[in-house]
């Protein structure tokens, strides 16, 4: 009768960064603490246009449960989002919209390009389709697949978490970062 209910009691909390520990105190770098907080509370902005978006819905739902990674709060406003997840074919006509969404996001921001179409145009090598979103915005992590399975999308999110964890707090103010954005004609 019915499904057996499995109780999962083994909880894991995020590992603390390296530091000096003693009775009553713990000293570490500010970079690590902020990175830890950012990595485990990423607010994704889903930009889902096609079948990869359907896989993303599965990723969000209970079976795969993106919430386990502290990313259950989807932000449909770019202003509060940290991670832009582009899932699906981006037509050339949609390019400026995607770019505007990216520009509206506050720093720090990361971009996850999910699937063959978002990463390279995929099978749509045609006059109307953007041949990879990295032609208009910088991308941090690419997830291959057509469409990728939810596990792959989760892997991509974990890679972004890794980037967020290890990023220097000064990176977004650096001249290299400004140069990167300028190379895309942003700012």
């Amino acid at each position, binding site marked *: 009768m019915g499904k057996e209910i499995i109780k999962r009691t083994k909880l894991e909390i995020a590992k603390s960064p390296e530091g000096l520990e003693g009775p009553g105190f713990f000293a570490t770098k500010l970079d690590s603490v902020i990175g830890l907080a950012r990595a485990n509370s990423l607010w994704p902005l889903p930009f889902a246009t096609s079948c990869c978006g359907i896989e993303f819905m599965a990723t969000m739902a209970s079976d795969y449960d993106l919430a386990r990674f502290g990313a259950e709060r989807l932000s449909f406003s770019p202003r509060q989002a940290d991670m832009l997840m582009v899932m699906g074919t981006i037509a*050339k006509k949609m390019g400026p919209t995607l770019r505007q969404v990216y520009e509206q996001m506050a720093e720090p921001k990361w971009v996850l390009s999910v699937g063959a179409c978002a990463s390279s145009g995929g099978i749509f090598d045609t006059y109307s389709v953007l041949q990879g979103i990295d032609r208009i915005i910088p991308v941090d992590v690419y997830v291959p697949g057509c469409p990728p399975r939810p596990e792959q999308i989760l892997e991509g999110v974990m890679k972004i978490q890794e980037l967020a964890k290890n990023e220097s707090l000064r990176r977004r103010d650096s001249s290299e970062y400004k140069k990167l954005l300028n190379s895309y004609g942003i700012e």
Partner: protein
Amino acid sequence: MSQEILDKVNAKLKEKFESGIEHAELPYDFATFTVSKEKIHEVLSFLKSDPDLNFHFLTDLTGFQTEDEKHLGVIYHLHNMVKNMRIRVKTFFPMSNPEIPSAVDIWAGANWMERETYDFYGVKFKGHPNLKRILNVDEMDIFPLRKEYPLEDQSRDDKSDKMFGR
């Protein structure tokens, strides 16, 4: 049924127009008329306004290019819903002068269809109130469904022949 429609419309057109109706045929059991570019607007106008024919609905309007790449064409699909009659009207014109009169003044629904046809084939509809691209990006400088333009995106450099053993 199709034969009857063909005969009926053909007789009406023959009676009204001395020239301009180039073909009347029944491919795939569908009454089809080929009309010269000069007469197309007059013929369409007549097909709609004649009380007996009354093709009051423009189902579709689309463009095409002939196999020899020398001519473009426009096809009109007309529907009389009262009598359940459908016909197809074709017209051809040379690529060098792709200009035909707009049908927006006959069917308002032709507006977006003509814009689409312009967008993909570069057919210039004379008298159209707002003839600009509708589906493709405004910056596009080609008419992508013409055979002279490649289908593939030309900005990709990772598709060299070497990768595909060509």
